[in-house]
């Protein structure tokens, strides 16, 4: 186990490095020009050149890369072009917001979708289940900003329950969380439902019922326990994806998270900031995945991790 974790951490370092390197190269190959973004309107070549020099972009990509690596080893990811501050610092400032929102969203998703999925499994092939399916699928199929705006109009403008722009009061996390959850619930609840229908009919469940185990324990400890792997995987995947930002939701609700940051950084071709974000989110996502992977053997002892199939 420990060796497995250590191995994974080693791989994580490598992956993070490769991801950052890929982004580094892609950014410089893709069209767009940081200099033009930070120059005054209608810039002259001389002005552009000056900015390139300042940003170190006048060198060839390999040279830039080597410089980047040298700095990276000293723990310096660079200074944000836009914020004129260490890029990592800017990202770290945003990270708590992103993590808060992601955690809240995933918790709400799980708290709603799992019981809903179980309920749907118990009501398999009924009008209620059909209705729940249609509602959740339709919900996740609408554009995210549409959901956000509708919630804002209803709850912030008309009812005035929540403040529309985020992070200034405790309750302002509610609407973005709900928006994200609406986008996830269909998937999780349907996964739960699929697995549960199978496991509720499994022989061991019937046998356990014959032992007088309560229906509640049968549902959760037996059937749900055996359904957990795909569900936790899906939750983990979505959670990891949220860690690099739920861009639209962050924008609509003015949630100062990483997603909004990075999209703006991209528009502004703020290379160091993008690289810093990638570095941080890669590490985070890898940690989440590692965590999920480590959960597998706990959720199902038959699973053997890190081993080639016998």
């Amino acid at each position, binding site marked *: 186990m420990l060796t497995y974790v250590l191995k994974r951490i080693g791989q994580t370092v490598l992956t993070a490095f490769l991801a950052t390197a890929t982004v580094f190269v892609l950014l410089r190959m893709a069209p767009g020009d940081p200099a033009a973004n930070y120059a005054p309107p209608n810039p002259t070549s001389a002005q552009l050149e000056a900015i390139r020099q300042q940003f170190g972009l006048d060198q060839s990509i390999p040279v830039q890369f080597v410089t980047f690596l040298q700095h990276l080893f000293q723990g310096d990811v660079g200074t944000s072009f836009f914020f004129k501050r260490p890029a990592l610092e800017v990202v770290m400032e945003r990270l708590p917001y992103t993590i808060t929102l992601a955690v809240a969203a995933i918790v709400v998703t799980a708290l709603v979708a799992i019981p809903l999925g179980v309920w749907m499994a118990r009501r398999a092939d009924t009008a209620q289940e059909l209705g729940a399916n249609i509602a959740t699928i339709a919900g996740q199929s609408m554009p995210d900003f549409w959901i956000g705006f509708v919630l804002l109009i209803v709850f912030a403008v008309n009812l005035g329950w929540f403040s529309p722009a985020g992070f200034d009061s405790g309750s302002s996390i509610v609407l973005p969380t709900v928006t994200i959850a609406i986008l996830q619930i269909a998937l999780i609840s349907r996964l739960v439902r699929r697995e549960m229908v199978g496991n509720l009919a499994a*022989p*061991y469940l*019937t046998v*356990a019922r*014959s*032992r*007088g185990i309560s229906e509640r*324990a049968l549902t959760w*400890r037996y059937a749900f326990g*055996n359904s957990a792997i795909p569900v936790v995987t899906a939750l983990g995947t979505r959670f990891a994806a949220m860690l690099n930002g739920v861009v639209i939701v962050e924008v609509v609700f003015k949630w100062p998270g990483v997603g909004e940051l990075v999209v703006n950084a991209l528009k502004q071709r703020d290379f160091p900031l993008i690289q810093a974000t990638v570095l941080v989110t890669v590490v985070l996502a890898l940690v989440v995945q590692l965590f999920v992977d480590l959960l597998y053997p706990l959720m199902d002892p038959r699973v053997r991790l890190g081993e080639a199939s016998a």
Partner: protein
Amino acid sequence: MSVLEVKDLRVELMTGGSVVRAVDGVSFHIDEGETVTIIGESGSGKSTTAMAILRLLPDDLAVISGEARIAGKDVTGARKVINGLRGRSVALIPQDPMTALNPIRTVGRQMTEAVRVKYPKLGKAEAKARALSLMEQVHIRNPAKQFDAYPHQLSGGMLQRVLIAMAVSTDADLIVADEPTSALDVTVQAGILDLLLELQEQTGIALLLITHDLGVARLMSDRIHVMKSGTFVEGGPVADVVDHPQHPYTQKLLGAIPELGPWHDPAVDAPALVKEDSRG
């Protein structure tokens, strides 16, 4: 009053395009201390009968009619009745041990859980102690170790014994045993059967046994019923059925038992101890 009283039990299964009458009007009863065995063709409805008595068939699959009373309580009516009996007054030893346990929980946890259904006041440690002693009684080697094993780490026979132990642990009045020893080697089987017999002698437990092993049926039963296509084709005291089978199917079954041949048992120094009638 009989421990189990079954009258004209029918089980109709509503499957895809048809209704299958899996059990078609069977009647029998088991008194305290008695063992009644159902033998018969595979797919004849033996397990379905057992499952119907325990009400383990889903309502949207099986329609049960007729009467089944456990300790006088009608279990074919409201589910509440049987819910109160399962794991307390009646226990099941299921047919297929390999799929009968929750694959993601240790054997031990499932055993203690079973014990605590009937004895909720039992502490964790006490429940564990009880489970361990039962595992020993069903001849599981090194019970302390197997207690923490997951079902897939045990052999088929070991799982079967775990299931037997769980059924026994409830001190039920009625045990429904569906091919309880099919995965066991004969010495262990002997041990288990002995355990059941002893239990019966001591506590007067009633046993509904389903088996295709006629030796086991002969050894364990007071009465025996031969099932074919959902109905009992023959039934009666065990010796009558085995020694003087009436129905051709019963005769065919008895004829198909592989012979073991004579042997010399050095322990008794007599060629065929088993022939001897030593009732004492």
